């Protein structure tokens, strides 16, 4: 059976599934129950400086995007960092770590952007026994208005500066948590690396307004008739997070920097995808907030089954898809596929037809008796039909054999060739 034990920048945990810094890791009671449920580690809810704790709104904190059956697809929040006193958090962290020495316990931090504040907090957490720190440069609401969170994460120079202080005043492994609210995710990752970060974690939440109350004319969640943008997370953000993780994994100046993958991870499959794109471990928030701590059990059994069936160990998975992430210009333009409809599986809903006929290439024929057939002469292989078909694997894409005629273009399938050498490309180099 696959060994799921994980070693992330020297922090050991029985599996690579950590809870992200958020309400699930807000206090001792939660974290103990999370560990009992099987989570490999937690990043404690972000701590601030000592003194009066931050205050949260007392109205609703969340907005939501639902799919069918009110399935939570996206969650938006306007919560701040921990609103509990620093001493209480520190005491609890120490007690939990003492009782769960085999689990990873990382402390998330966010204090004002000056050297003193950082030196002070680092000395205060020194004897908790925690395994590392995560710098929250990502929170996009509230704290950012006070010059913290994403206000730091959006300025690479600040990231580098703070990371340097942290490495100077603490011996703990340091993870820098990145905000996705920037244009090029490699820039803050490079800054973190320059400052001496041991790893980056991403993504934190995305600036968002999930919905507008059409009677109050205010964003939701609505606090006394007004709303502010919040941070978006949950399954809907996974594609954005995956892309950003892959950019760092293959970036010229970021390659090799350990990554803790976060963003919309709900099942073992999501986790495996993050790891294949280079994440050394993963962190989860919304899935736990939606279904409770027990979701980790499916993540563990699922990842184990997957690794076993592929005869892989965890290290074999990490980064395995990175070499296959490339730029568009290197994609093989001579790779030709055609949609094929499995008539036995087809339930005759006609969605493929509507999609192709109305919005694509008129490559599906609707015949008497609601028989839907692909017209190979028209099919450009966009696979929109595959995506809209309600029956899994009912429509598949068949790859043309080498030399086989593409009935749309009248050209036989040729060997690999990409845009860089394509005759229509004014910048094309002559093919070697």
């Amino acid at each position: 059976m696959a060994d799921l034990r994980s070693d992330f920048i020297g922090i050991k945990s029985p599996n690579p599934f950590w809870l992200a810094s958020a309400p699930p890791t807000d206090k001792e009671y939660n974290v103990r129950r999370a560990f009992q449920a099987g989570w490999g580690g937690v990043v404690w809810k972000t701590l601030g400086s000592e003194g009066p704790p931050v205050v949260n709104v007392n109205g609703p904190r969340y907005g939501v995007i639902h799919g069918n059956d009110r399935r939570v697809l996206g969650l938006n929040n306007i919560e701040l960092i921990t609103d509990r006193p620093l001493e209480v958090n520190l005491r609890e962290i120490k007690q939990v770590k003492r009782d769960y020495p085999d689990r990873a316990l990382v402390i998330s931090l966010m204090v004002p952007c000056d050297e003193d504040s950082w030196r002070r907090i680092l000395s205060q957490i020194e004897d908790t026994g925690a395994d590392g720190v995560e710098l929250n440069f990502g929170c996009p609401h509230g704290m950012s208005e006070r010059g913290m969170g994403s206000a730091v994460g959006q300025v690479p120079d600040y990231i580098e500066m703070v990371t340097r202080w942290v490495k100077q005043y603490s011996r703990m492994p340091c993870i820098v948590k990145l905000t996705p609210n920037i244009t090029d995710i490699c820039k803050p990752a490079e800054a973190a690396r320059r400052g001496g970060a041991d790893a980056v974690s991403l993504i934190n939440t995305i600036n968002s307004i999930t919905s507008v109350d059409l009677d109050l004319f205010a964003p939701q969640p609505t606090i006394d008739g007004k709303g502010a943008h919040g941070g978006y997370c949950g399954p809907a953000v996974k594609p954005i997070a995956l892309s950003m993780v892959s950019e760092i994994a293959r970036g010229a100046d970021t390659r090799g920097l350990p990554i803790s993958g976060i963003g919309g991870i709900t099942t073992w499959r999501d986790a495996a995808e993050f790891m294949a794109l280079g994440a050394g471990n993963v962190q989860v928030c919304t899935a736990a907030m939606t279904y409770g701590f027990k979701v980790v059990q499916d993540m563990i059994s699922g990842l184990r089954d997957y690794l076993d069936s592929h005869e892989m160990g965890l290290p074999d998975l990490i980064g395995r898809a990175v070499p296959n992430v490339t730029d568009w210009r290197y994609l093989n333009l001579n790779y030709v596929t055609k949609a094929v409809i499995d008539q036995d599986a087809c339930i005759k809903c006609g969605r493929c037809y509507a999609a192709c006929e109305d919005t694509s290439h008129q490559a599906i024929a609707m015949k008497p008796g609601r028989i839907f057939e692909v017209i190979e002469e028209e099919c450009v292989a966009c696979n929109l039909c595959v995506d809209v078909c309600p029956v899994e694997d009912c429509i598949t894409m068949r790859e043309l054999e080498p030399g086989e005629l593409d009935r749309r273009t009248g050209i036989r399938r040729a060997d690999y060739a990409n845009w860089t050498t394509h005759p229509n490309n004014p910048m094309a180099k002559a093919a070697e």
Partner: protein
Amino acid sequence: MSQARLSPGIVPGRLAPEDLALNFRDIAPPLTAHEAQVAADRCYFCHDAPCITACPTAIDIPLFIRQIATGTPDAAAMTIFHANILGGMCARVCPTENLCEGACVRMEAEGRPVEIGALQRHATDGLMARPGHPFRRGAPTGRRIAVVGAGPAGLSCAHRLAAKGHEVVIFEARDKPGGLNEYGIASYKTVDGFAQAEIEWLLGIGGITIETGKALGRDLTLEGLTADYDAVFLAIGLGATNALRTGDEGIGNVGDAVDFIAELRQAADLAGLAVGRDVVVIGGGMTAIDAAVQSKLLGAENVTMVYRRGQDRMTASRHEQDHASASGVRIIHNAAPVAIHGDGAVAEVEFCYTEDSPEGLVMTDQRFRLKADQLFRAIGQRLDEAPGSPALEGGKIAVTGPGRTSLDKVWAGGDCAAGGDDLTVTAVAQGRDAAEDIHLSLSP
């Protein structure tokens, strides 16, 4: 246990009032808002959806379900009513497993269709509960149209004509309008006086008058109507019933299922309604099922439905048959009545087993008898006789296109007209289409 429960003969009050109330409660209670949301989420919004094709009134089902899913059930109801003004009744009585739901692609996918009928009821109930009526009468045209029969066909035709601005008078032979909605449909499908409430709501459009107690052929003539009105729509249903070949006239406690059902539908107190201890129903259609099931629900101890052909030939849907079986009705196939025994009143019915053969039904020499103190005939209804003699086809009024009869200015639709199944929804479709055709013919 009430005293009368096992009394022989035809007696009232076999069950206690609370048991009767329980037995005759709404068979398919309305969906809650949550259930409706979950059910609506299952619709795939099919292209050129097969469910629409399967609905005789061609309601845009994916559209109305999407309107429910997006939180606008009133808009959904309007989508339904534009195609089918009796969408409320149809939602309750349509044999959906043979119609829209039977064609739903989810049947193919997982054998469980989108609950179209229940969703239709969800939407229509909501809008009908609001004050007023959502359609407006068109600007008066000065044209007057006579509709004969206030069943679903007549009502649907009248509403569409009123929407076009015509003035409509409905002549109805009975004391109450509604046709079989009021006198026929099983009572647990349309509880709480829904049939009359729906008619009152429908009349909210204005421009329609109903004259009850006026029968064509008795109080009115077709010649008179065609002379007085710009057009006539015949929607008189099927008034007469078929008789048994055994010769059942004059034998006590033998009657028509439709009469028993009508009496049941009109009963102010079900505890006062008499029913036999051993009831036999002959027939294989919806009427036979309804008579059998409701006899059982009234407290009959043994109810047997006997159909002369095989199960696959029964016109009652599989769902209806299962409902009868689940209610405790025994269904015997391939047996035909040959004699009724009894002294003055029925005591036993004698049957002969039959076999379906290429030459038709053949009697075998196997016979059996069923104990019966009440016998119902449910072997089909037919047209009384077409007043004013339009041409007939297969015993019904012959029509071409949207209900045109052989007579000038006379249209027909619903059960009395040839073509289409004898269903409420088909009657609604035919009434609506005839109205459009009448309107066209009257337009300059």
